[in-house]
C-alpha cells in the first residue's frame, strides 16, 4: 500500500516544478529576452524528452527488447503516427490507437 499522504506531498512538489516553468517566462521575459542558447536548448527538450519516454515503451513494452511482429505496441504506433501527422491534434490519434490495440486483443 502506498502512503497517500506522502503521495499528496510529492504532488505539491510536482505541481511547483510544473507551474514555475509555465509562469516565469510570462512574468519575466518576452520570448526574445530569454538568452539565445537557453532558447536553443529548450527548443530541443520536447523532441528529446518525448522520444526518450516513447521509444522504450514501444520497443521494450515488457522490459526487454522486442521488435517482432507480435509487439502490438510497436506496430499500432504506425497508424497513430499517420493520424497525428494528418490531424495535428492530440485526441484522434490517441483514441484510434487505443481502439486498435483493444480490438486486436479482443480478436486474438
Amino acid at each position, binding site marked *: 500500500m502506498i502512503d497517500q499522504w506522502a*503521495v499528496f506531498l510529492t504532488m505539491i*512538489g510536482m505541481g511547483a516544478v510544473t507551474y514555475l*516553468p509555465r509562469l516565469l517566462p*510570462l512574468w519575466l521575459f518576452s*520570448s526574445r529576452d530569454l538568452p539565445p542558447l537557453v532558447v536553443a536548448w529548450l527548443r530541443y527538450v520536447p523532441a528529446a524528452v518525448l*522520444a526518450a*519516454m516513447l521509444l522504450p515503451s514501444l520497443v521494450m513494452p515488457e522490459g526487454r527488447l522486442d521488435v517482432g511482429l507480435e509487439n502490438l505496441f510497436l506496430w499500432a504506433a504506425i497508424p497513430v503516427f499517420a493520424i497525428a501527422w494528418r490531424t495535428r491534434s492530440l485526441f484522434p*490519434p490517441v483514441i484510434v490507437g*487505443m481502439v486498435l490495440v483493444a480490438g486486436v*486483443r479482443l480478436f486474438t
Partner: protein
Amino acid sequence: MGYVPIGFAYGVLAKQAGLKTFNAVAMSVLVYAGSSQLIGASLFGAGAPVASIIVTTFIVNLRHMLFSAALTRYLKGWRKRALAVFAYELTDETFAVHSAQFSEWVPLKAEVIATNVTAQLSWLLGGWLGAVVGGLISDVKPLALDYTLPAMFVALLVMQIRLKTEVVVAVLAGSMSVVLTLIGVGRWSVIVATVLGATLGVILESHWPQHEATAA
C-alpha cells in the same frame, strides 16, 4: 472535450497504481499536465523515490516553458495576477488552441480563461470518472488503457517537431533512452537521454546553421 476520455484513462491508471480517488483527482488540480500525470501515477505505483518523481515531472513538463515564452508577446496588456491564472492552465492542448488563435486575434481575457477552465473541468471530470471506475476494473488491457501514454507521446512528438534537427534529436534521445534502460540505468535514463539529446541538438545546430530558419 477530447480531455474526457484521456482524463478517464488517467483516472483508471492512477487508481490501478494505488492512488486513492482523492489523490487521483488532486493531481489534476495540483499538477494538471496530462502526460506527466500518467507518468506520475505509474511512478507512484512502482514505488519510485520522491526525488526521481519530481525531477521526471520537471523534465517532462519543461516544454511548457517554451509555450509560455511563445505566448508572452500576445498577453502584454495582462496583469501579473491574470497571467498567473493563465499559466496554471497552460497545457499542450490549450497552447495549441491559443497559439493558433492568438496569431489572428487575441480574444477578451474572460474568453481565454473560459477556454482554459472548460478544458481543465473536462480533464477533472474524466479523471474522477476514471478513478471511480478504476476501482471496479481488474484489468486495464481489454480497454487498451495501457496504450494511452505511448499513443499520447507519439501524437505529442508529431505535434512538436518542426525542424530536421529535431528529428535527429528525437531519434538520438530515443535510442539513448532504450540503450540506457537496457544497461540498467533505470529511472534516470529518460532524464539523461533528454539532457544529452537536447545538448546534442544545440551542438548540431551550430554546425548545421541552414536548419535554424523556422524557430518556434
